[in-house]
């Protein structure tokens, strides 16, 4: 990637908040480059520092250490009103005393754009978010989904270089959320603006993003396209947080990983040190159920859980380790049945903790 490609660059950002029980480290040496025009998602559990990172980019907080660059320009010390970056707040934060149109015009007015230009832009944005009819309403006369669109429109109207979205869909019900996910993708596509999106919903992150950054405890764990994060998680936390997976812990002996249940599995990625403790992972959809004896592992079926088009078959290895396989349509085994489990050698991965 060249320098010109970078919309936002965060260099070794650190942020601590004071608290009664000593300082809380919200961000711990985070470095990240977000590319121009991409849909970038910050994903992680509650309290991992996602909002803090967004607030640093928007300028609502200053980092204790590190720099923030916008298209190559150092903006670390600029106040929020001088950063060409807009935010869609989780609570929407619409101005209750202004109409929808006046809310959307706010940024343009503050920038001192001519009235005619502002009017034209507001009309265009209202059309873009399909809210033409609502222009004269007050925010409290709108539904949650409509308020959401106005918040988006207001942030898009000044055509920022980067749009920051802090869990903008979390207050919507499932159906509306799916609809808004598509809507957001469409808007990002049509405007070409760089989106930095925060969520703790891994499915949302995987379906919407060009790239995802997974965070934990103020640190970035892994950055990459959804497929890569799913297929090649760098550690146990990422593997566990993204999608469902199985963990098998064993000890390396003679180039293989020996599980407590008795089986030995080939060590992926070269021979590990003798006696090392290794965690292996394999996704449920990579497991195939065979007759007993015909597979790499032996297991007993505990329960079948159906969900829409497929089912999860929960099993136990002989030492009690739980393991899950995803089964598509077809014959389902009975609980209590013995099965052999097989998988392609490439499906197995070794993880750091």
């Amino acid at each position: 990637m060249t320098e010109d490609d970078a919309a936002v660059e965060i260099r070794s950002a650190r942020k601590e908040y004071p608290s009664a029980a000593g300082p809380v480290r919200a961000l711990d040496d985070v470095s990240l480059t977000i590319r121009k025009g991409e849909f970038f998602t910050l994903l992680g559990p509650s309290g991992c520092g996602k909002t803090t990172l967004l607030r640093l980019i928007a300028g609502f907080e200053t980092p204790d250490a590190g720099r923030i660059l916008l298209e190559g320009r150092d903006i670390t010390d600029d106040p929020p009103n001088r950063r060409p970056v807009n935010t869609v707040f989780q609570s929407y934060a619409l101005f209750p005393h202004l109409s929808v149109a006046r809310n959307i015009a706010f940024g343009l007015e503050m920038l001192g754009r001519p009235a005619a230009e502002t009017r034209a832009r507001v009309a265009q944005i209202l059309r873009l978010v399909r809210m033409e009819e609502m222009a004269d309403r007050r925010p409290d006369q709108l539904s949650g989904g409509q308020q959401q669109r106005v918040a988006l429109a207001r942030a898009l109207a000044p055509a920022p270089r980067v749009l920051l979205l802090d869990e903008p869909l979390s207050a919507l019900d499932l159906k509306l959320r799916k609809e808004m996910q598509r809507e957001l993708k469409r808007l990002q596509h049509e405007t070409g603006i760089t989106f930095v999106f925060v969520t703790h919903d891994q499915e949302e992150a995987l379906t919407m993003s060009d790239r995802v950054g997974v965070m934990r405890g103020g640190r970035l764990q892994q950055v990459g396209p959804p497929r890569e994060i799913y297929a090649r998680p760098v550690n146990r936390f990422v593997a566990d947080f993204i999608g469902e997976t199985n963990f098998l812990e064993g000890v390396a002996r003679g180039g293989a990983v020996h599980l407590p249940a008795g089986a030995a599995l080939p060590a992926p990625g070269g021979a590990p040190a003798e006696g090392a403790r290794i965690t292996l992972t394999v996704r449920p959809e990579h497991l195939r159920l065979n007759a007993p004896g015909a597979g790499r592992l032996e297991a007993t079926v505990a329960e079948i859980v159906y969900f829409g088009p497929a089912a999860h078959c929960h099993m136990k290895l002989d030492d009690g380790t739980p393991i899950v396989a995803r089964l598509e349509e077809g014959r389902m085994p009975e609980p209590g049945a013995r099965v052999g489990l097989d998988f392609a050698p490439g499906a197995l991965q070794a993880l750091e903790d």
Partner: protein
Amino acid sequence: MARARPFSAARLPGFAAMAAATFLILYAPIATLVIYSFNGSDSVAVWGGFSLKWYGAAWENAQVQEATMRSVVIALAASGIATVTATMAALGTTRRGRFPGQTLIYAIINQPLMAPEIVTAVALLIFFSSIKVATGYTGLGYLILAHAAFCVPFAYLPIRARLESMDLTLETAAADLYATPWLAFRRVTLPLLAPGIAAGAMLAFVISLDDVIITEFVKSAGQDTLPTYMLGQIRRAATPEVNAISTVLLAVTVALLSLFFAVTRKRA
């Protein structure tokens, strides 16, 4: 089976009698005052038929006119000063998290509610008379400043309440949308705060309008406000004219306070 009913003071013995007595003591004197303001005779105790003559008398009384004007001027100026001060104090104490010394600052702002009024009156009298001697100025300024001082907490409380119910994110959003701090204040904070400011100003106006103690101590000769004029009149000869003035004052106060409650009831 009888269900246990929650405790209610309304079922205590003697509750109804107590309530009736309270209402009687609170409102009977006021009702009498209002009724006798329409008295046709010269006495405040003997009914002489319905008449509006005391209202006419008060209206034409030059002293009443002058005192009324003075009261209104002082109340307008004092509530204006107090409202601006209280607005700044409320912004200073609420637009951030908790800070050290917060309770102390609240106590300082609300001092006039706690200090005995007579003590404040004496203190102001002594303080202002030394200034009078030093400067020779004897105008209404002293009364205006004194009233402004004790009106601040009354203006402060509704403004602070309004600010505390206001979402801080709105100002953050304004800054995010390129508003300078001043513009964010003017275009977002101030319009949302306006009902609180109006409520605070009305309360301060009413409080200033009926003050007696501090005014009585601070005023120079010939600076009677409506309440101190009434006090002076009653000391000499009580006529139903005082009832008429009181009734008008009561009506104005009730009207302003109703407006105050209407404004503060509207949610942020």
